């Protein structure tokens, strides 16, 4: 289907579409299934489409026939009947029977979706505003997964990549041919984890655990998005699943385990301001930018500016407290202590206190965060 053809003008065609867009073919059906669940849903939908489409065509045909033949302008005189018990019983019973026919496979599919037992691997998924975290519970490591599309591509100042808005820095890696059980929860508001080709959509609910499962047929990259409105950047928290053969998965897992051991921060390390700032800028970019913005100016009325902020330029303890425990006044400011390490929090606070127009020259060491945490606990 060509939009250019539709408008029929060259000026319009440049308005309508870049070459990257034209390269994509608009799909009109569910994505190609890559799990038994997705296939089940696909087939069930195809069946429903046939049944409902057939009913619609039948209704349309009868109506069109009446419209053409039983019109006054064609000289048709009205017959004044207004009931017929037999007909009425028939058109009540037949839809019931059709529904019973649908209900049988539909019930089996629901039971299948719900049977999460016999898993070979368990991954905990946590939704955050606006990113996902994946924890491999069997192996005790985990990571955050952020949108990888650059802000410039969203603003339109650079070309949009092929997987625009559907790319992340760290995909969820899973083995093919193994039953993966997902445990889903959320940190702040309700999110929903949807990967069409895997046949999964499950809400992630703060304070509760839900489960789901899949077993991927073949290696590949499967993309999806959050599908429950979760605030400002709901449209910008994609999901990418990288399914690998069991051997490749084992390689990846071994590398991950090694990396996790190596990159563990020494909580006692004393950092320099330059090193903390460098790390803090990264942490800020991954976590704080959506609200407080890259320039630290925030969004007036919704999210306060950090540039020149009395909290950031004031007493260290107040600053640490709000980052660790969140804001009482504005629930959008989360308690970051629950998701960032002492070192990351120390780094981002040090960065904020020495970025933009803030020149406190002060730095916060991880040990101070640790002290603040235990202080808050006691």
């Amino acid at each position, binding site marked *: *289907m060509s939009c250019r053809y539709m408008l029929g003008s060259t000026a319009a065609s440049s308005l309508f579409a870049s070459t990257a867009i034209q390269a994509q073919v608009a799909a009109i059906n*569910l994505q190609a299934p890559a799990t038994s669940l997705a296939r089940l849903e696909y087939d069930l939908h195809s069946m429903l489409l046939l049944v409902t489409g057939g009913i619609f065509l039948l209704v349309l045909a009868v109506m069109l026939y009446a419209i053409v033949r*039983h019109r006054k302008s064609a000289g048709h005189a009205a017959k*004044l009947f207004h009931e017929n018990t037999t007909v009425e019983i028939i058109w*009540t019973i037949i839809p*019931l029977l059709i529904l019973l026919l*649908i209900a049988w496979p539909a019930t089996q599919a*629901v039971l299948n979706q719900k049977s999460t037992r016999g898993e070979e691997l368990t991954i905990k998924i946590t939704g955050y505003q606006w990113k996902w975290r994946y924890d491999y519970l069997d192996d005790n490591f985990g990571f955050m997964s952020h949108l990888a599309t650059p802000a410039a591509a969203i603003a339109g100042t650079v070309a949009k990549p092929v997987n625009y808005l559907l790319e992340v820095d760290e995909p969820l890696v899973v083995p093919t041919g193994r039953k993966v059980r997902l445990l889903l929860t959320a940190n702040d508001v309700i999110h929903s984890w949807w990967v069409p080709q895997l046949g999964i959509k499950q809400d992630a609910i703060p304070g509760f655990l839900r489960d789901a499962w899949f077993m991927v047929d073949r290696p590949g990259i499967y993309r999806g998005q959050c599908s429950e409105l979760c605030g400002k950047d709901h449209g910008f928290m994609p999901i990418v699943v990288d399914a690998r053969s069991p051997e490749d998965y084992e390689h990846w897992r071994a590398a991950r385990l090694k990396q996790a051991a190596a990159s563990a921060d020494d909580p006692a390390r004393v950092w320099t301001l330059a090193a903390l700032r460098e790390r803090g800028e990264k942490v800020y970019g991954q976590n704080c930018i959506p609200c407080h913005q890259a320039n630290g100016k925030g969004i007036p009325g919704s999210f306060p500016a950090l540039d020149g902020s009395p909290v950031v330029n004031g007493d260290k303890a107040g600053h640490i407290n709000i980052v660790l425990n969140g804001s009482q006044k504005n629930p959008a400011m989360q308690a970051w202590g629950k998701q960032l390490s002492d070192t990351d929090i120390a780094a981002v606070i040090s960065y904020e206190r020495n970025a933009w127009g803030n020149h406190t020259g002060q730095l916060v060491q991880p040990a101070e965060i640790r002290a603040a945490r235990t202080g808050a606990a006691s």
Partner: protein
Amino acid sequence: MAIAGLAAVPQQSHRPHGWRRWLFATNHKDIGSLYLWFAFCMFLVGGVLALCIRAELFRPGLQFFQPELFNQLTTLHGLIMVFGAIMPAFTGLANWMLPLMIGAPDMAFARMNNWSFWLLPPAMALLLLSFVVPGGAAAAGWTLYAPLSVQLGMGMDLTIFAIHILGVSSIMGAINIVVTIINLRAPGMGMMKMPMFAWASLITAYLIIAVMPVLAGAVTMVLTDRHFGTHFFNAAGGGDPILYQHVFWFFGHPEVYIMALPAFGIVSQVIPTFARKPLFGYTSMVYATSSIGVLSFMVWAHHMFVTGMPATAQLFFMYATMLIAVPTGVKVFNWIATMWEGSMSFETPMLFAIGFILLFTIGGLSGVTLSVAAVDVQLHGSYYVVAHFHYVLVAGALFSLFSAVYYWFPKMTGRMYVERLGQLHFWWSLLWFNVTFFPMHFLGLAGMPRRIPDYALQFTQFNQIASVGAFMFGLGQLIFLVNILYSLSHGKTAAQQPWEGGNTLEWRLPTPAPYHSFSEAPQLDVAENGVVVAMQGGKHG
């Protein structure tokens, strides 16, 4: 009947003039007109918000609106269309037409009627005002799901108060409709004889009385969670975010029928008139409408199939939802059987009624698809749902409203609308409605979530088509406005009976309907669906 006593009350022969006529209105026709004009204005406001949404979605990338404003636009579009446009429009029609159709002198509670209308403008003002408060309007979608709605700024508080006021207004309007229908029918107008529009309004009114307080409860819980330290929806305090959804959808699903049943009623009046044939299966229509009303309380959790309900709950709500297809199917079959072997003509009201049947059937069938929980896992929260409920609410509720306005315009105003403009309005709306919303089925199937301000590149083409369609559809509504404004002053004078097949009570009145009609109850001999066989008495003025 109670009406005999009312007839003894001396009638007020004069009416207040100027702004007093409207601000102090107690006449059901004046209040009906207020409702209808108000609803149309809100339809334009909600429509402009929709066009903002479609403008942003014309291309990938962020062009016009930042995500937080985009979320406010989708939220307010929904709230305004549901509570500001569709519901008041149906209440306005019921106000205007019910007394004429059942032979009542006015609505039962004339002053309360005034109050239920005049609550609407301040409520809508609160909603619109929320765009300019710090933090902007509510941005949690029209469903206002907690905990997101607990996070938002003071725009959310304004929204909550607006919903409270709207709820009070709807409940009072509904009580008025119930009491009018139960108590003020003219002698001879039995319950199982009265027009389907009266039946539909009656059942709708009961649904409103039952569920608007539930909505008020839901948003009040959000309010106390926001400001007064409760934890209804906060797991850390022993609450449950999903509780909000249960409470909201216990309101929300009957709400769907609050917006659909009056449409069924209108179509059940229009089709027989233009088919010149009595409504087929009147009794089964009454039972079908009632059972839809009852079933609507038992299906709410089909909006929550992906929240992680236990399998048994999913199955129950799936079966109950599928069951609704049966009475709904009965209604569609009855309408077609009414058309069958009729002597049809296709004036604008009939065109919109037929368009309604056709497109509502599509919306109903996509509803069956969505009811199958396993398939809903793919479609929930996607554009497929957006397509589905716009087939039900635009092609359903809105088309039926257009049908009704064209149908009763001569009786209300004494003038005919311009038929050619009406036909143009219909064909234009039919075409661009489908251009706008049909591709959304494809978008949803292909994996595009709803309520996103920006999208992946493979969704571009259908979004562009939908955006073009939306702007054209919006433009077409001006045809309607021009037609109405022109015809109010320049339309041809209408006959008492402008439609050959119209034989319900309102067509026995002079045209335009006198300011005070049936000040003395007529003695009626009525056949099914309010068809008047004989009438004696019935004074006006």
